[in-house]
């Protein structure tokens, strides 16, 4: 049975994600409406697809009148990086999750990162991960609905400032974990440099592939780093 402590631990980790999702979801809802989706369809996509960047792209493609098959393929390509994340997560979630189908639905860039870094800590279990994921999911769905209905009321300056929210969250997760794991710090730096280089060299390159390539290559380089006995992993 999941204890109240584990749930609370998960909710605390989920709060910054929910906060970061809200403005992005509102923006998505607004764009979906502008692209001609009904509030129901706009929210429905968030509820059933739940894949941030892919939804932005799908809305643009729908507005441009592109075929559905092409939209689905693009979503698959952009989101295939979550295959890597689930693979990594399914190994660190111990004890084995009782509801893998549910947990898998909760895997996003943000819950993966927050979850992976917290799973090493005391009291953060797969139940905590689930609680965190549910909070993030609700924020995404509710934000999409709010954006579809009232998005046009939000001042542009506030909306664009809120766009930094998720990056601030990634930074806040990364910085403290670097102090504990110097190899992780090196890998994160390599990956960032690689992603930046790919972006500068091939601006049209799909973001999903950029993240996949940088992740695979930088992590592989991490294997070459010397291991000391006192370090974990």
């Amino acid at each position, binding site marked *: 049975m999941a204890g109240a402590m584990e749930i609370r631990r998960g909710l605390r980790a989920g709060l910054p994600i929910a906060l970061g999702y809200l403005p992005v979801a509102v923006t998505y809802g607004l764009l979906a409406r502008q692209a001609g989706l009904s509030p129901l369809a706009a929210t429905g996509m968030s509820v059933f697809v739940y894949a941030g960047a892919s939804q932005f792209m799908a809305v643009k493609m729908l507005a441009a009148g592109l075929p559905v098959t092409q939209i689905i393929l693009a979503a698959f390509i952009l989101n295939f990086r979550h295959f890597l994340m689930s693979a990594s997560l399914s190994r660190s979630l111990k004890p084995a999750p009782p509801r893998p189908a549910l947990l898998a639905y909760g895997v996003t860039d943000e819950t993966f990162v927050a979850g992976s870094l917290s799973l090493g800590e005391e009291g953060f279990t797969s139940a905590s991960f689930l609680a965190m994921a549910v909070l993030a999911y609700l924020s995404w769905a509710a934000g999409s609905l709010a954006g579809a209905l009232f998005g046009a009321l939000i001042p542009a300056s506030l909306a664009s400032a809120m766009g*930094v929210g998720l990056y601030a969250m990634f930074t806040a997760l990364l910085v403290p974990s670097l102090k504990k794991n110097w190899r992780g710090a090196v890998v994160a730096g390599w990956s960032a440099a690689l992603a930046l280089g790919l972006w500068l060299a091939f601006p049209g390159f799909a973001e999903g592939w950029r993240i996949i390539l940088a992740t695979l290559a930088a992590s592989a380089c991490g294997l070459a780093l010397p291991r000391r006995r006192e370090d974990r992993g």
Partner: protein
Amino acid sequence: MIWLAILGMSLATYLPRLAPFLLGRRFALPQPVCRWLEFFPFAVLGALIVPGILTATPEPRWLGAATGLFAAGLSLLTRNVTLVVAASIGFAYLVQRLF
């Protein structure tokens, strides 16, 4: 039409997330692969922050990078992620107003 797209996208994004959870129980991965997977969170973070943060806000152009530095500095002082997110949004909002 739109609901067909939603259904298709739902499967296309969910199945890759689900597959490792189902397969992972059947296969034991070799040790080097496990160590490789352990680096993924760090690598993903690096590739998510850069270059994304550089283009997170439209104007001024240096604001994304400045907010990243602000968030990193604040993260050295506190481990409260929610606080860092809220403060960074506030920082970006103020700088946009001033410049």
